[in-house]
């Protein structure tokens, strides 16, 4: 399976080298489940299993969240990550859940996830690139409506916060070593690499879509906006899917639990504070992975709310989440002076 894609040979080589040299105990990636389009998480411990990994980037699960739920601190683990996975992992490291030294991140470029059930991919591996979508070697037009909305707004196609990143240029994968660990691995695997981040053009289209999405909210009056979101929240069936699926919600004891704070047991839809409490806890650190929205059975466009507030906070505090482990989330570090500044507006 892995042979089908351009970065397969390089990726399998890197993973095999990591395992053979015992640099990690296992690698978390994806493999094919029951058919070509069924991608399921896969934990590889034997070098010979490396061939089975899927090297496409459209998989629907967040690996950072898999790590949060099923990983163990202190174990050396490798992960094949997209930008949102890597950023989620960095946020978990900031929250003292894992040590960055224990994790080996191999980045693959990603141009968005798509619901396989929506377009009925059966023929073969699906490939999403800046140029469009291909499945079974054929170009297909799936339209923006089938890509996850958060992915359309994503400005980070190549994970520059990983140890190594692969970028497909022409018909081959180029390797970029972003840390000493990454350089060491590429050298051990005998792969030629470049140091530092590849030059990636700014995703104007993504920024444009951000503006479109956020401005639609901002054009509403505060009352209209509140009404819009409260109507959305009324659809909530309180499945806790957004909380379960969020890589940053790491608390074992959660304020959203029944009768913990403002949330009565057995009340559906839950109090509006259900959503607002989660929003305040996450917004400054949201990595726009879209897992909350993907998990929502009521299809509330929550990733837009989180992303919009994140952008406001990000420009106010000059802070980007999921990039640097040494930069703590700004709302946790807020000063009296900053509290008195205006300009933050709940989207």
């Amino acid at each position: 399976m892995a042979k089908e894609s351009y970065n397969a040979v390089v990726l399998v080589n890197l993973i095999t080298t990591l395992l053979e040299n015992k640099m990690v105990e296992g690698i978390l990636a994806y493999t094919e489940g029951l058919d070509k389009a069924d991608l399921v998480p896969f934990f590889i411990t034997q070098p010979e299993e490396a061939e089975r990994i899927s090297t496409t980037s459209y998989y629907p699960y967040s690996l950072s969240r898999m790590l949060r739920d099923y990983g163990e601190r202190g174990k050396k683990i490798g992960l094949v990550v997209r930008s949102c996975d890597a950023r989620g992992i960095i946020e978990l490291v900031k929250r003292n859940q894992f040590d960055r030294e224990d994790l080996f991140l191999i980045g693959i470029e990603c141009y968005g996830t798509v619901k396989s059930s929506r377009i009925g991919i059966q023929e073969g591996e699906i490939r999403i690139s800046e140029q469009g979508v291909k499945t079974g070697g054929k170009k297909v037009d799936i339209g923006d409506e089938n890509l996850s909305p958060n992915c359309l707004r994503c400005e980070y196609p190549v994970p520059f916060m990983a140890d190594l990143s692969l970028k497909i240029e022409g018909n081959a994968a180029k390797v970029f070593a972003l840390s000493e660990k990454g350089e060491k691995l590429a050298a051990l695997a005998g792969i030629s690499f470049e140091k530092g981040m590849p030059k990636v053009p700014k995703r104007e289209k993504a920024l444009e879509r951000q503006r479109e999405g956020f401005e639609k909210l901002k054009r509403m009056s505060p009352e209209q906006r509140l009404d819009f979101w409260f109507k959305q929240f009324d659809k909530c069936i309180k499945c806790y899917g957004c909380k379960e699926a969020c890589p940053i919600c790491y608390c074992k004891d959660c304020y959203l639990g029944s009768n913990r704070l403002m949330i009565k047991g057995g009340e559906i839809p839950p109090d509006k504070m259900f959503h607002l409490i989660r929003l305040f806890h996450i917004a400054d650190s949201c990595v726009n992975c879209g897992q909350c929205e993907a998990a929502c059975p009521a299809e509330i466009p929550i990733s837009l709310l989180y992303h919009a507030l994140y952008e406001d906070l990000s420009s106010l505090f000059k802070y980007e989440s999921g990039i640097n482990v040494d930069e703590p989330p700004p709302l946790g570090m807020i000063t009296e002076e900053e509290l008195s500044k205006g300009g933050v507006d709940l989207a």
Partner: protein
Amino acid sequence: MLSFVPTICPYCGCGCGLLLVVKDGNIVGSEPWQRHPVNEGKLCNKGWNAYQFIHHPDRLKKPLIRKGNTFEESSWDKALNLIAGKLNSLKEQSGSDSIAFLSSAKCTNEENYLVQKFARAVIGTNNVDHCARL
């Protein structure tokens, strides 16, 4: 060791797909199965927690027989003999229609078929209902 095993949620009749997460031989989580046509990667609160009962210390693993206000552990043979005896005597005393059967959405189609067959053909009543008929 960590593996992800596709299966169907045991809770209601919807039949959402989920992946059970098996870590070192124990089931430690459930994940929405993205490719499953019923739920398309979404789950309800029960589905997200569908793994919790499996290794729960309160889980009943043996049949219990009520003795006054307490329950006593028993063997399946003993429990089934007791049930069969009671069903027989109730049927003789008060007739077949004094008995009703409640089936469950947690069962398979085949098991539910067997329940109604047992009610109709063995006991002789049409009193069959189902917990998902809400």
